[in-house]
């Protein structure tokens, strides 16, 4: 079912806003990851790990789900479809993968926040407190989201078998109508 033009524009705006917002939030987490690994101030390092979990629940998770849902609505509401074109299918898979990893990773962020909140942990040695995991996951997420962005912009060719079948099914009635129309117009 194709959405009306205004609704399509609104859905597209929502999808772009949530996806770009998600990308920007990941960049912020990447910066926080670098800060946690490079800062010489223990309070700063602890603060970074303490703020990551609530910030992820407040920003990353909602934007991830918003991007996923608006993307599904956008594809189903246009003739692109959800399973007809490989680039749409790839984006769906990447979005699902990123959201799943994010949800699983929330446990790790909770774990890091617990360590940072524990005053007995890592007294003088900051290396016991530091963890490269948020930076690594942020880089992975950034690469994945940039790849999804590239697919959205370039829309590489390639239709799935399902898409080809759907196109043929839609094409047959149209061709039949086109053949009938001139004959009808010729008739008195």
């Amino acid at each position: 079912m194709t959405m009306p033009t205004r609704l399509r524009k609104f859905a597209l705006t929502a999808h772009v806003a949530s996806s770009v917002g998600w990308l920007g939030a990941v960049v912020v987490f990447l910066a926080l990851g670098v800060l946690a690994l490079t800062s010489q101030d223990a309070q700063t390092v602890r603060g970074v790990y303490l703020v990551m979990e609530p910030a992820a629940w407040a920003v990353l998770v909602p934007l991830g789900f918003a991007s996923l849902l608006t993307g599904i609505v956008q594809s189903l509401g246009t003739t692109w479809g959800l399973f007809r074109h490989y680039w749409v299918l790839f984006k769906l898979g990447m979005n699902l993968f990123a959201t799943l990893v994010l949800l699983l990773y929330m446990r790790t962020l909770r774990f890091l926040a617990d360590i940072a909140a524990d005053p007995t942990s890592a007294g003088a040695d900051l290396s016991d407190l530091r963890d490269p995991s948020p930076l690594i996951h942020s880089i992975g997420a950034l690469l994945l989201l940039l790849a999804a962005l590239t697919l959205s912009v370039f829309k590489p060719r390639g239709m799935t078998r399902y898409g080809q079948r759907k196109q043929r099914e839609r094409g047959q009635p149209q061709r039949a109508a086109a053949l009938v129309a001139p004959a009808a117009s010729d008739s008195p």
Partner: protein
Amino acid sequence: MTDPSRYPKSGDDAAVEPAGDSGDGVPRWVKVSAIVALIVVLMVTVMLLLNVGGGEHGPSRHSQVAYGAGPASSSAIGHGVQQL
């Protein structure tokens, strides 16, 4: 921007079916991307299973094996209980 010569009137918000995209067979970019994705998934799986980069900082930090002695072991055990 989408190249209009490739997908005429078929932007993200278009109601028009992209034309000339019904070629049979799987495109090369799909095959290459699928292989790359498979390799990445396999690598992550192997890292999870072998605990590469391991200890407390590895991806299998949540397994019981990762909860060894250490400065954060009490937090880790508490976290493990939360997961149960």
